[in-house]
């Protein structure tokens, strides 16, 4: 059996429906903006002051049991309890607001006595949470800026703009999905977003690299259709690579998502959806955006001498 995603010689037009892709992307961004400003994100205690207690038992737990245990430990009432593990033998309880050290100690000793295993406890003060979130946003923006400069230097300014639009879209898409599913946003999540950014740019650059190569082969660009054909050919030539790369990385990411530790699950999930978004955006957003922008800039160059004569 030969598996082959070779599309280079097939007659597929990826460009024709570009307005639909742009429309779809704009709709997704709008949905995201509405969701993020209304429902918002489920911020973990890394970003909001609070305390999280993870306990592990040898038996299956229910939410009521865990709540009971906290009351017995000293009248503590968790604001949220989630179960994890194959047989729900792990639980994580969240408390809003920072917890005094004595209470943490009381809870720890209670669960050591009850379950025989030391629970994990983290507490964060509101100030630290805000700083972390701020740093993450600054980091993403600086990374984006650095990437534009590098790409503008190695390629051309317009490639850089298109690449950054695609990567911001990907990061935003992951945030939107986390808002829809109300998954917990924690520190590893930032690492996931930044990885997605890295992959997205990686993917886009590979496509752009091929467009640049094919552009060099053209003596002169004769109108929009010609430019569109160059972009379409380049996309088809790199399609196999795009599919294979995203598939192999997805194997790893999905394995970690489904089989890995619960602590890393939302991290892996962010990477999985980010990878899919990244592939979509480099095929249907970045390259198409570059096509439209490049066409306009070529038109402008053509019109310049004419305009000069008029004046």
């Amino acid at each position, binding site marked *: 059996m*030969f*598996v*082959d995603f*070779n599309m280079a010689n097939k007659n597929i037009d990826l460009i024709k429906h570009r307005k639909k892709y742009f429309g779809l992307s704009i709709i997704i961004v709008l949905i995201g903006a509405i969701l993020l400003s209304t429902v918002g994100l489920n911020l973990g205690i890394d970003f909001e002051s609070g305390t999280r207690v*993870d306990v*592990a038992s040898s038996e299956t737990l229910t939410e009521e049991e865990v709540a009971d245990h906290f009351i017995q430990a000293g009248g503590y009432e968790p604001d949220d309890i989630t179960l994890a593990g194959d047989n729900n033998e*792990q639980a994580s309880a969240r408390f809003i607001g920072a917890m005094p*050290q004595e209470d*943490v*100690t009381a809870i*720890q000793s209670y669960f050591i006595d009850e379950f025989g*295993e*030391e*629970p*994990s*406890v*983290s*507490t*964060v*003060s509101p*100030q*630290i949470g805000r700083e972390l979130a701020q*740093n*993450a946003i*600054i*980091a993403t923006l*600086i*990374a984006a800026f*650095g*990437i534009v400069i*590098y790409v503008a230097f190695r390629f051309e300014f317009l490639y850089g703009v298109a690449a950054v639009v695609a990567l911001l879209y990907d990061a935003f898409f992951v945030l939107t999905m986390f808002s829809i599913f109300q998954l917990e946003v924690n520190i*590893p999540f930032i*690492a996931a977003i*930044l*990885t997605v*950014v*890295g992959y997205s*740019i*990686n993917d886009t*650059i*590979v496509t752009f*690299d091929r467009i640049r190569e094919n552009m060099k082969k053209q003596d002169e660009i004769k109108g929009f259709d010609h430019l569109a054909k160059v972009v379409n050919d380049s996309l088809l030539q790199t399609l196999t*690579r795009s599919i*294979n*790369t995203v598939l*192999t*990385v997805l*194997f*790893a*990411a*999905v*394995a*970690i998502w489904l*089989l*890995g*530790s619960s*602590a*890393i699950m939302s*991290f892996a999930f962010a*990477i999985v959806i980010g990878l899919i978004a990244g592939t979509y955006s480099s095929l249907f957003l970045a390259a198409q955006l570059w096509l439209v922008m490049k066409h306009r800039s070529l038109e402008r160059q053509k019109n310049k001498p004419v305009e000069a004569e008029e004046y």
Partner: protein
Amino acid sequence: MGKKGLRIGAFFAIVIALGVLIAQTATDVARDTNLGLDLQGGFEVLYELQPDDGELTQEDIQSTATALNQRVNVLGVSEPAISVEGEDRIRVQLPGVEDQQTARETLGTEAELSFRDIDDNLLMTGESLQQGGSQATFNENNEPIVSLTISDGELFGEITTELAQKSYPENLLVIWLDYEEGMSFEEEAQKEDPAFMSAATVQQTLTTDASITGNFTLEETEFLADILNAGSLPVSLEEVYSNAVGASLGEQALQQTLFAGMIGVALIFLYMIGYYRFMGIIAAITLSVYIYLVMIFFNAIQGVLTLPGIAALILGVGMAVDANILTYERIKEELKDGKSVKSAYIAGSRRALGTIIDANITTIIAAAVMFYFGTSAVQGFAVMLIVSILTSFITAVWGARLLLGLWVNSRALNRKYWLFGVKGRDVRGL
């Protein structure tokens, strides 16, 4: 045998040598890896320094870090990490610490001893204690006490002379640990568990020897003596972030994630071999070497492996695979263009390299920014990602070329398109 056999022989020699090397040293490499808190359990806390007089000097920060370090030594943690973050924060990481509660108490207490009268007037501070002069011992009634050595005997002499002249209860010398404004002896004395450490009557002039007596257990006096010997903190500490991971939860996380990683890598190998045939086998070999090398480099720079770090390692495999895929796709294209195996290999490798470099440098930019702005867990991820990308240049670019080159130059692969996953009828002019 000729040149052909020589090259293929060299290929197998290299692969077998690498296999033996990895098999022999893999366990050592794994043992040398520093595991983060989230993988082996432990305790991490971030303190904000709050100076009493409002100004924090560089000296304050340094002496606080030193005092914390001494306290960590008291706890006997093998690989503690104490780092100053920003302008007024100190992060203490104690991987593998067993008794997290004691650790918290030992670190957090200011350990500022003060000697006061019953009206809470300050008579003497802990600065008058001799360094290392505190000891857990027993009094004549065999009760655990802490004996103190006072360095400023003159001052202590004056204080005790004055007290000894007074009558009960005014001749009480009250010893407080971490006295805070607003606490009063009168109130605390009514309580079952008073906040001061001891209140003893002074009947004679004392100079250098003092003791803290009270209802203590031996553990408590030992703890107190250790704390006092480690020195007080020059500033108050406020806990702004803490993270404690139970040892078994950490171990479970490590095992699950490693297992998931192995499944993921196995799937990648199978897919690569299925799709790229012979080149896929080369990819599987170089990827195995890649994982081994990443761990060696990571240990060499004393990186700490965290959960996100494992994820970065496995995702790094994806990046390395991408380098292979880019090259192989190019080679396949050249083959379909009707080039010979050798010239397809040369042109494909050369053309893919530029793309690989551009794509990876942009990812390194992102990882470097992460390292600079991130906190420990994110930094662990960023370091692993950078190490991964650099290593992938060695294995997926140079290593894969070397191994594939041996076969290509032996001419054993000539015209065997199916070995590359290329259909004969797709080849132009065939």
